[in-house]
Each structure stands twice: as C-alpha cells, then as structure tokens.
C-alpha cells in the first residue's frame, strides 16, 4: 500500500519520513536507514504525495489500496 520505496534509487536521506504529515513512515535504524511504511498505520495515508515531493531521487511510487479502486 502507498507509498512503495525503491531500494535501488533510495539514498536513505530520510526526507520522506520528515515530511510525512501522517507520521506513518520510519527509517530502519538498526540496519541501513531504509524508509518503510509502518504497517499498523498504513490506513492513515492520505496519498498526499509529500514523501515523493521531498524525495530527491524519485525513489517512491504509489500502490493504491483496493478500497480506492472499487
């Protein structure tokens, strides 16, 4: 579910996490600071795209939840 992070492009800068107004993204601090969507809060995504706007490497795409497609 949105957003989807592309590891091959992500530079682990954390801007997506900083600018998510829902606070539903986090960095994997134990390993390589890869951003991820916190599963428990994924329904709080507004699909505003702030994470992608702030991403300097266009490393984020969106996968829309089923309830938006029916």
């Amino acid at each position, binding site marked *: 579910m949105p957003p989807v992070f592309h590891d091959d492009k992500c530079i682990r800068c954390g801007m997506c996490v900083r*600018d998510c*107004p829902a*606070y539903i993204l986090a960095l994997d601090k134990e390993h390589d600071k890869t951003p991820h969507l916190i599963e428990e809060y994924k329904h709080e995504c507004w*699909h*505003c*795209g702030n994470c992608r706007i702030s991403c300097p490497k266009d490393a984020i795409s969106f*996968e*829309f939840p089923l309830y*938006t497609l029916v």
Partner: protein
Amino acid sequence: MKSVKHDWGTLYETDVLILGTGASGIGAALNSTGKGLDVLMAGKGTLESSGSLGGGNDHFMAVLDSDEPFDNMESFVNFYMKSAFGYRERQIEQWHDALKPCVKILEECGVEFLRREDGFYFRSVGFGQPGAWWLHIPNGRKIKRGLAKRVRSMGVTVLDNFQITRLFKKDGKIAGCMGFNVLTGEIAAIRCRTAVNCLGWHAQRCTNNSSHNPYNCWFTPFTTGSYFTLAYDIGVPIVNADISCRGTILPKGWGAPGMNGINNMGGHELNALGERFMFKYDPMGENGIRRNQMMGTNQQQVEGYGPPFYMDMRHLNEKDVHHLQYVLMPADKATYLDYCKARGIEFSKYPLEVEVGELSLSGMLLADDNLETPVRGLYAGCNFTSFSGAMCGGYVAGGHAAENAPSLDMAGPSEEEILAERDRILAPLNNASGTMTHSDFEDPIRQVMDYYAKFRRNMPGMAVALDRLNFIDGYRDRVRAKNLHDLMRVHEAFEILELCRIHLDACMQRKESGRGMYVLTDYPEKDPALAKGLVVSRGEEGPVYSWLEPAAK
C-alpha cells in the same frame, strides 16, 4: 526567542504566537515578521509539508483590479457578504488588499501562474462567483516548500511536530498555549502577547465517504477541529457551526481536491442514465455553488438516478482536457496521476466516475473588523475560504497581531495550569488500565454522524445523535495510547467529538433547510427570517446562542 527548560518541559516566550503552520500560518508569519518582534509558529506537522497545501494546490483566487468584469473590490466584497453570514465588510476588504501582495510573494517563491497570450494572468470562474478570479498554478506541488523556505529565512522560530492541546487566557487576553512534540513527547508551554489562530478551517474525519477510511478524504485528515474547539474552550464564540459544514464531489473511492478545476473548465456531471442534471439545482450548473452540486447529486442518488455519477470532460478541446488532467489535477494533489493510472482514467476518453464525498465541519470564529476575536490579542487566521482565503486571512490577522503586540502584556499559563495540562495531555499514555484504542473511540463518532446526521436528517435524529455522542464521551477515560503516535490521534479524536457535538447542537437551533449542506426533513423550506449568522458561545451549563444581525449589504 526566550526559552527556559523546566522539569515538566520547555517554556517559550514570544511576542507573536502563530498556532498552526499551514497556508494560513505561513500568511501570518509573512506579515508579522521583520517588525522587531519575536515570532514563533507551532504546528503538528513539518512546515514544508503541513496542512492541505502540503501536497500542492492548482488554483489561487485573486481579484486583481484589472479592467475585466467584476475584477474589483466592490464585486469581491459583495459576493462574500451575500454568500455567507458572519463576515464584515472591512474583513473582506482586507482580504482583497492582501491578494496582490500574496500573489507577489508566491511568484517570488517560485509559483508559476498560467498567463494568456497577452501576458496577463489567465483566470477562470468558479463557485458561482461573478468574475474570473481563479488563477491557475501549473507547478503547484512545491508551493509549500517555497513558502516554508522563505519563512525559515526570515528568522521565525518554528516548532515543528508540535500538537497544540490547549489555549490559555488571562484577564480576557490570550496568554499562550500548551502542547507536546509528537515525536519526542516533550511538553512545552508558550507565553505570548498576541496569537494568530491558524489551525485549519476544514475539520475532517467527522463523517465517512464510500471508502469508509476517514483518512481518505478531501482535505488533510490531520485537521480535526482544533481551530474551533481550542478557541471555544477559552470563550471565543463560533459563527455558523451549523450551516458551514462542507463537502465536495470526489473521484470515486478517493479523497482529493480538484473538482473546482473540472467544474470551471467546463466538465459536465452526468447521472447513471447519462443525463446532465445540475441545472435543476443551480442556474450555473456544475459551476455554481458547491453546496448545490453536493445536494443536487445527493438528491439524484436518493431518487435512484445514481450511483454511478460521472464528470464528463470528453467534449473539452484537446488542449484543455490535457491541461486539466496532466497539469492542474496533479498540482492539486500530487498523486492524482497515480490514481488515474491505477483506475485507467483518461479524461479525454472516458467520463470520470465521482461520488458525493464526506461531510467536513467548519464555521468561523467571531471576530471584529481586524479579525480579532473577543479574547483580546487572539486573531482568527482561518475565517476565509480556499488557499487564497487561508493565506490572505493569515496575512491580515498576522499583520494586526504584530501591530497590537507591543501594546499588550506578555502572559502565560501558571505553573499549576501547566502541570494540570501536562497530566491531561499524557493521561492516555499513562492509562495502564485503558482498554480502548483511539480508533475504538473515534470510529463510533463517525458511525453516529453518518447514520443520524449527514445530508438528510431531522431534529429527533440529531437529538439522538447528540445523546449518543455524549455517551461516547463517557468512554474518554478508557482510551489508551500505547505510543506518541496514538497519543496524537487520541487528542485529535477528542477534538472531533467536541466539534461534532457543537455542530449538532447548533443545527438544532436553526429550523430550516437550504443553507447548510444538509436537508432537515422536518423543516424542508428555507426561512427568510433566518438569513443571518448563528453564534454559539460556551456557557457554564452548555452552549449559549445568539444571532448576528443581517449584514447591511
């Protein structure tokens, strides 16, 4: 900026306090900074992305005093004095005066406005207004970043990630606020001389749309009514908490703005039978006032002529339809084209399926000519509509807050008040015996609102709804936040509950239909005697009501 660490958290002191960091907060910061005063803005999000503007915007309404029809202050003032109750002419005049400075600032911050071949701004008509007032913004996705960069460079102190939970007043004057950092949990109290309330006009998550995900809504779901509830708590009356509820037609299943662009570029709304029906409900059809489009579509649905409903743009010329889908819509919401791709939407080939969206709650804070509320030194920054109204309203309010600050005392909450509010803020986090999540508490609020108090309702039903909301309130002490994220949502849920109660009680005072975005089955007609604003104030034993006298114009 003075700040002192205490055992309980941090105490800040500022001349001007800006509550909220969305478009309105930005406007307030731009016009209160650089005048020799400390300016502090605090908001739940991050300045670069907070509020409805964070994900972009494709239009800015601006009367520019050109030779074009209705492009002048008189038309602008007339329109707003007639279309809503509670505005004062001087307020709208100042909104007008702020338009050109704000357009200039936006351009300086990198915003491009579409221009005609003769070099002047291209503008279109919207929302039943008499003139073409809507500027088009092709690169609207990064507006908030540009504005934030400017504000940060001006020396404004910004407290990001700070959820404001309470305002304080002393001797009838604003004294400050308290809240907590949603990432660290740090408590802060802020003392001030004046404050501008910019906490957001559209309270979301009060009802559901067809997706039944309250976060999947028209405007940012993280504006949940604190603009009203926090001010109301310290004695600021709310105007039209009843009829100011709002909504829009949404792309099916997906919360997004953008319908203004589709309507004012000439989109046709069709029902399931392929009939264009909106002229039955508004003389300007789809491009009339939004209430009529919502209620007209809802009426068609009640009568069985939909769903589905569609916005048909296939008749537009190739250039316009491309501009609409590929320039304006993604400027209004940055993921619009992702949604289109996921659903196979192509405006030039197929009608866009749409739905009647959720109902958001709104109103305005009672304020004088200079947007000062009855709490001295507290200004209403979000009383005007749209991106233009938010930014200009903040700009006007911020200017007056700065002008007035030197003449008012620095005040703040007492130590006793600070400790009591700290305990209240953190109570859900420390509630080891609590058995309910914030969703367990918040979802039933929408269940009640959707069932008893949506687009068609009646007085007995609203009385039942109010009773059920009071029942939900009785479960407040059972809510537990397991982390700071949940704590933020718990306080949002409390705001939603309070605003829904204020709204319903206010609705029961106005025995008519035709002004709010709902129909009362037991009072189906518009009552000309009620063409005036309803004011609700917090009384010792519940809400106290009065009516504004009709405006002179």
